């Protein structure tokens, strides 16, 4: 039996250390020992500072109270300069470090070319195989590469706050079109109601059955979090959003291929000199692939 199989067997039996080592192997590029796509996950995203981690902390408390286990993959960007990363999401999930029903793994994006974090799918599969009921992927929804990360999840929850017109930024980045459910956090603050209204009105254009609901919660007081957890159980995606997610995944895989092409440097040089057109450059790389 290989290392991976041994680790998987121990992880299935509930050994956290083996589970953790197995996730490391997959993160480092090792093939998953499982069939692809057997697990399903909830992606949680939103602008920086809206309280995603705190909200997840509260959601975890409710799930644990109900006897359900929760695994969180918390993704933060790597520094492009040093390659290092500061991963602080778990400090906001305060009750999570002592329960056997909670597993939190912080992940750095490691500047994957094209924003591709293909390992996430494998990690979700492994966690699911090891019996984790709820599997969450948390990312900052601030830019294109983060959207691509969250597009690996099967359902997407968008978290926004009452201030700074964050949602406008989120709209710009295209996250709103991907969201299956939207929550406005910090509902204890006076501007929250107005933020919820403006999100609803932004969504009301072309409204139909598949338009995502907008809920108000407060991770601070816990208000509305129970409703959110209940609602997640019934949240459905739409064919349009499913297609958008698949599209994002395809684009990240495509970028990855492009950026890893052996023809990349010579093609760039040829483009610089003006000896080929962009279309010829694309054709050249496609031929190599």
């Amino acid at each position, binding site marked *: 039996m290989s290392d991976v199989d041994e680790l998987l067997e121990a992880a299935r039996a509930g050994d956290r*250390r083996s589970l*953790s080592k197995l996730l*490391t192997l997959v993160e480092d590029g090792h093939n998953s020992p499982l069939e692809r796509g057997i697990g399903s996950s909830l992606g949680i995203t939103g602008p920086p500072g809206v309280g995603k981690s705190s909200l997840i902390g509260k959601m975890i408390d409710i799930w644990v109270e109900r006897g359900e286990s929760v695994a969180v993959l918390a993704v933060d960007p790597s*520094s492009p300069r*040093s390659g290092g990363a*500061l*991963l602080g999401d778990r400090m906001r999930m305060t009750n999570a*470090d*002592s329960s056997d029903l909670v597993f939190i793994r*912080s992940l750095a994006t490691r500047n994957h070319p094209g924003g591709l974090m293909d390992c996430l799918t494998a990690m979700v599969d492994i966690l699911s195989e090891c019996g984790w009921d709820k599997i969450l992927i948390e990312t900052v929804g601030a830019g294109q590469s983060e959207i691509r990360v969250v597009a690996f999840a099967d359902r997407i929850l968008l978290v926004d706050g009452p201030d700074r017109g964050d949602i406008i930024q989120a709209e710009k980045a295209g996250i709103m079109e991907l969201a299956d459910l939207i929550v406005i956090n910090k509902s204890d603050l006076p501007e929250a109601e107005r933020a919820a209204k403006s999100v609803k009105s932004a969504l009301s254009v072309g409204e139909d059955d598949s338009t995502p609901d907008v809920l108000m919660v407060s991770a601070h007081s816990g208000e509305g979090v129970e409703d959110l957890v209940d609602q997640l159980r019934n949240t459905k995606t739409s064919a349009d959003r499913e297609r958008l997610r698949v599209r994002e995944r395809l684009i990240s895989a495509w970028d990855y291929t492009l950026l890893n092409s052996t023809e990349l440097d010579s093609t760039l040089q040829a483009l610089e000199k003006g000896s080929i057109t962009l279309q010829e450059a694309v054709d050249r790389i496609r031929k190599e692939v």
Partner: protein
Amino acid sequence: MRIVVAKPGLDGHDRGAKVIARALRDGGHEVIYTGLRRTPDEIVRIVIDEDAGAVGLSSLSGAHSVLIPRVCEGLRASKMDNVIVFAGGIIPEYDRESLYAEGVRAIFGPGTTSTEIMEFLSTIEQRSQSGNPVGVGEEAGWHW
């Protein structure tokens, strides 16, 4: 390397821990910061779940001689013998020998430069590559 920076016990002073966390990030490491007031058991759990190669414990409360050995014991009991433990904060000279005997490989006091901590980590990596003991469950004796 993946490094957990932790604040064990009832100690609200985390400026130092945060500065260290940033310095380690700028040195190319992936740093997981736990936040304040973690118990030794929680810290061990975090090191396991994060599959970290090292843990830095910051203590300014005076409880280092109780809390730090508990983290070391917990790691050994969980078969995390190769994890590197280092400490920082206010740890008087006369308390240090017993912590080294517990498997702590470095103790950094006030005035330590981030360069020195990076040097410690690269020494650790060299030692570990050449098969010398560096982990908390490996032979004690060598320390920074």
